[in-house]
């Protein structure tokens, strides 16, 4: 019997797909070894009201640590509570989401607990208490199968790769107030610039519309924004490094080796040639569409569907057709 803990990440008091995916993975692993899945949520006062919903994804017990100092993420405030919760639980594995927050938090937890961490995995299993993972290495040019020889095994899962699965059952929520010395924090967030309301980050989006140098200039991005909007609220804009370096788009949108790694359901590459460093960031997308006027562009080598043509003709038409389709749904 082995219990598994999911660290369920909230942002602005909301538990999103990162939390649901982590809990679903924890539930699957726990079930395979006859244990139960627990979830841990940290946040400001009142966050517990959002946490109950995690029961639906298989968390039997949901611990919610509420504190003013946990309302926003600060690793110095968060790490101690996470470590204490893991220590008190005798877990065989702990699942984090490999989001910006998870990638920042999980290694610190691993160091404090003195156990290894497998980051950004695309596959994870547990049998006989041993956790094995598959994770991309060399920017997705190879996959490593690893066995983690420590308990608890710490794992962070790549967003969008694992299915969040609803199941019958409700989790029991218990709220606690961790002790945090807010005055002793050695790092302080002095400014937070949120994205505009309702936008998702490219690394977590289920659909990505990405533009490259073929877009000709920043003034044409309303074309891509139109397509993004037509594809719905889970869609985000991405960019190649060439356009980020040119200052057309912010670095936060860059996809690739020196940008973000994305694994959306749908990736649309518009005017992007498909250099290896770009492919490194998006080759695990489920479906890839390329729009490029050069039939020999390497992007067509990884695209499931391609249109050879001038993006300035193709994109407006695509936006129209998608809008029409969605209007009919």
């Amino acid at each position, binding site marked *: 019997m082995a219990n598994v803990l999911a660290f369920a990440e909230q942002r602005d008091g909301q538990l999103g797909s990162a939390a649901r995916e982590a809990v679903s993975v924890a539930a699957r692993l726990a079930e395979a070894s006859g244990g139960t899945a627990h979830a841990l949520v940290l946040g400001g006062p009142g966050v517990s009201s959002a946490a109950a919903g995690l029961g639906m994804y298989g968390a039997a017990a949901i611990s919610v640590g509420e504190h003013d100092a946990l309302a926003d*993420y600060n690793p110095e405030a968060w790490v101690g509570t996470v470590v204490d919760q893991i220590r008190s639980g005798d877990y065989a594995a702990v699942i984090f989401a490999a989001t910006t927050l998870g990638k920042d938090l999980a290694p*610190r937890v691993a160091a404090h607990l003195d156990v290894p961490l497998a980051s*950004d995995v695309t596959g994870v299993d547990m049998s006989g208490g041993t956790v094995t993972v598959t994770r991309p290495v060399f920017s997705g040019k190879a996959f*490593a199968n690893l066995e983690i020889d420590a308990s608890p095994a710490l794992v962070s899962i790549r967003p969008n790769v694992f299915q969040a699965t609803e199941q019958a059952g409700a989790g029991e929520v218990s709220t606690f107030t961790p002790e945090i010395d807010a005055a002793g924090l050695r790092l302080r967030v002095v400014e937070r610039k949120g994205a505009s309301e309702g936008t998702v980050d490219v690394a977590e989006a289920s659909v990505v519309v990405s533009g490259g140098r073929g877009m000709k200039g920043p003034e044409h991005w309303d074309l891509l924004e139109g397509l993004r909007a037509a594809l719905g609220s889970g869609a985000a804009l991405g960019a190649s490094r060439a356009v980020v370096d040119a200052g057309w788009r912010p670095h936060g949108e860059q996809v690739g080796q020196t940008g973000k790694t994305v694994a959306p359901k749908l990736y649309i590459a518009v005017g992007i040639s498909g250099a*290896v*460093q770009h492919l490194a960031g998006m080759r695990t997308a489920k479906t890839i569409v390329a729009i490029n006027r050069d039939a020999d562009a390497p992007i067509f080598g990884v695209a499931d569907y391609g249109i050879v043509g001038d993006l300035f003709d*193709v994109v407006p038409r695509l936006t129209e057709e998608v809008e029409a389709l969605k209007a009919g749904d």
Partner: protein
Amino acid sequence: MNVIVCIKRVPDTEARIRVDGSGTGIDKTGIKFDMSPYDAFAVEAALRLKEAAGEGDVTLVTLGDSSSQETLRKGLAMGADRAVLLTGDVSLDGLSTAKTLAAELDGMDAELFLFGVKAADDDQQQVGPMVGALTGRPCVSGVSRFEVNGGTATCHREVEGGSEVVEVDLPAVLCMTKGPNEPRLAALKGIMAAKKKPLEEKPAAENPSRVRLVGLSEPPARAAGRIVGEGADAVPELVRLLREEANAI
């Protein structure tokens, strides 16, 4: 102000990766190795800091085999002052690497410990924050640029869908991502000077890996894609395929 930068030697980003006969390693023939791209951003940030302050030493530290000398020399040619090569095995257990580096860094006199946000071979994105935790120093990850003011550094970092400004007490660990400044290329003069700069080589503290590499595989080839058609006229068919075949919209 002294700055330490941890850099790693990895296959060039263009390298074609093939699994070798053992099934747990890569075929290194024909592969060029270089400083991991994010580590180059960290070196650049350290050099700019030193230039602006007009004082201080930039020290590079690597855990690897003797071929990492070349990577350290490149950093010295960019302008770093000295380098330390800890010779030992590099595993896929980032905590083992972090412990080895931490043991060395603990005794070093510096205000800033810079890392790349991730190494371009194992892509773990963990060694920097682990070293922070192990050495008891605060750590900020995903830093695109920072300024030092007295006893603190003001760091700009990217977070999901936005950005943050974080103030951190020094000495601190910062994990650098791509920033506004392209890493400089070493000039001939730098390359000559690097030959005379101190490069200390010593055996690394051993921290056994607790992550066992069972096997390495190449990614499943994506099924051959399909050119749906040319120009805007191909759009209706594309949309139909995305809906009915790929179930993507």
